[in-house]
């Protein structure tokens, strides 16, 4: 399997009055070409920060303190400001959270696409540009007339598809979708995810889907990484994670999904996610873990390969 994106030892810290806070703590993974990787976690887990870090879009007081990211063999940390700028959208594209608010409200959709082309030095004749726009819109399931519309004239699902169109317009190798459907209704969500899947197949690119809806992950991704308190605590094929989750947090996360099978079976995870600046000693999850023992309180578990292609950070995995 050839890895299109490699993240090694990524560490992102935020400066805080009381000391540096590790938002992303030594995360490593590889994304294979054409693969769908999920990154699941709740608020404060570091998943969105990681997505931004891959694109080097972390703003002060946060900074990337360690780690390497490489796209198709090319080291991204070696790129200068301009090189990185050219890479965004053309190499790695992002469909950000709240995409619907990421569209410029006073520009028509086709103008925003024109921006993308121009910023990356793609010069097209008027006819070629119109044709390309129409093709892009068709690819994401939008009627060609949408090109002349303003964002407020589109529904939520249509705006999301417009954002996907912008994300794919330069044929990137990797798309990072950060909770692309969290603001959408469940019926529209399905349509948009279907569009994303088709687009990915046609382009042959890889997708990283960041989110917290385990049902969505189960139905969409090939492999899933679970993040907790800035660490990647489990990484495995999605089928394995569903049938046999190795990390207690993954188990708890799956169990906390409300089922439509039997009423009154909804469970939560007791306790609270830790404040990143006040992490408990040892394993960050131990205060809430049903299996916690003394070892967990003292020793931080390393991320180990517990089976071929499966990693977990737990003493008992």
């Amino acid at each position, binding site marked *: 399997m050839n890895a299109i994106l490699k993240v090694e030892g990524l560490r992102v810290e935020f*400066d805080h*009055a009381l000391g540096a806070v590790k938002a992303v703590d030594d995360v490593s993974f590889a994304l294979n070409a054409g693969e769908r990787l999920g990154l699941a976690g709740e608020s404060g887990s570091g998943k969105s920060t990681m997505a931004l870090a891959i694109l080097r879009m972390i703003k*002060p*007081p946060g900074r990337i303190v360690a780690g390497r990211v490489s796209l198709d063999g090319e080291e991204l940390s070696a790129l200068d400001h301009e090189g990185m700028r050219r890479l965004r959208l053309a190499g790695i594209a992002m469909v950000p959270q709240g995409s619907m608010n990421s569209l410029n409200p006073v520009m028509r959709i086709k103008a925003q696409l024109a921006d993308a082309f121009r910023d990356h030095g793609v010069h097209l004749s008027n006819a070629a540009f119109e044709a390309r726009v129409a093709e892009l819109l068709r690819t994401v399931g939008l009627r060609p007339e949408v090109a002349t519309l303003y964002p407020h004239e589109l529904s939520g699902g249509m705006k999301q598809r417009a954002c996907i169109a912008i994300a794919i317009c330069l044929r990137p190798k990797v798309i990072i979708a950060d909770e692309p459907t969290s603001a959408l209704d469940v019926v529209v969500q399905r349509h948009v995810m279907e569009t994303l899947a088709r687009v990915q197949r046609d382009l042959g690119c890889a997708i990283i889907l960041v989110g917290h809806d385990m049902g969505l992950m189960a139905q969409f991704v090939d492999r899933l990484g679970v993040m907790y308190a800035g660490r990647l605590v489990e990484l495995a094929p999605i089928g394995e994670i569903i049938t046999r989750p190795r990390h207690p947090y993954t188990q708890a996360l799956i169990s906390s999904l409300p089922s439509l099978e039997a009423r009154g079976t909804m469970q939560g995870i007791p306790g609270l996610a830790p404040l990143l600046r006040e992490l408990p000693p040892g394993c960050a999850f131990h205060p809430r873990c049903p299996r916690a023992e003394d070892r967990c309180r003292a020793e931080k578990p390393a991320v180990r390969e517990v089976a071929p292609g499966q990693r977990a950070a737990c003493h008992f995995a």
Partner: protein
Amino acid sequence: MNGLIRYLQRNLSLVAGSALLLFLLAFIVIGHMVVDVEDARALSVRPLQPPSAQYPFGTDRQGRDLLAVMVAGTPLTLRIGFIAGFLGVGIGTALAFVAAYYRGWADTIIRGIADIGLTVPGLLVLIIIAVGIPGGLSVNQMALVVASLAWLNPTRTIRAQVLSLRERGYVEIARMSGMSGPAIIFFELMPNLLPYLAATLVNAVSGAILASIGLEVLGLGPIDAPTLGMTLYWVNFNAAMINGWWWWWLAPTAIIVIVFLGLFFVTVGLDEVANPRLRKSV
């Protein structure tokens, strides 16, 4: 305490502005102890002396010790500004709250008056009022004249802030907890408005000082008072610049610059407090 110091390290504007204003305050206080303020009156000392050890700021044509004039006059100018500024913002705040919280015809009337008032050239109105008062103005009357227009802009801007605040979730919760309208205004809305009010206040004081200096330079101020504006009036009257008496116009100008720079930096600093999005990170 640590948090405060660190915050001040980030908010240099506030520190710079406060430093300038504190310097002025020190100047006034120490000045009063060191200098005989009676010498700020005309015919006190030998006229037209350039700065020397005896008269560090020199003297003017009418025989005033300019250092005494500055020491006596700066607080007067500042007083006009503060009275007018506070009055203006006080009235403006009250009207703004009533208009924005209760809406309806109260809002229409208040907004209408403010809008019309804002279109009329303020200086013109002030001149007409000042000219109309027989016998010249005292310092306090000056303050009231400027205050009469100082409430217009604060009313509008504070109203806009209140309009946005009143839609907040916590206002709705307060209503559902049985709070009355005036209670909501005072306990829920006002505290969140304090930083904005402070910034508006400093702005209003700046504007009031400027307006008063403007009137005084035109000769419409309190004739006998040694305020900064009146000093500049005498500078003009006596063609001090042409005559080469540079020390006469330099002193008030320098002090005016310090006043405005100080107030400006404090405004910028307070803006940052009022609007957390402007906050820079360390």
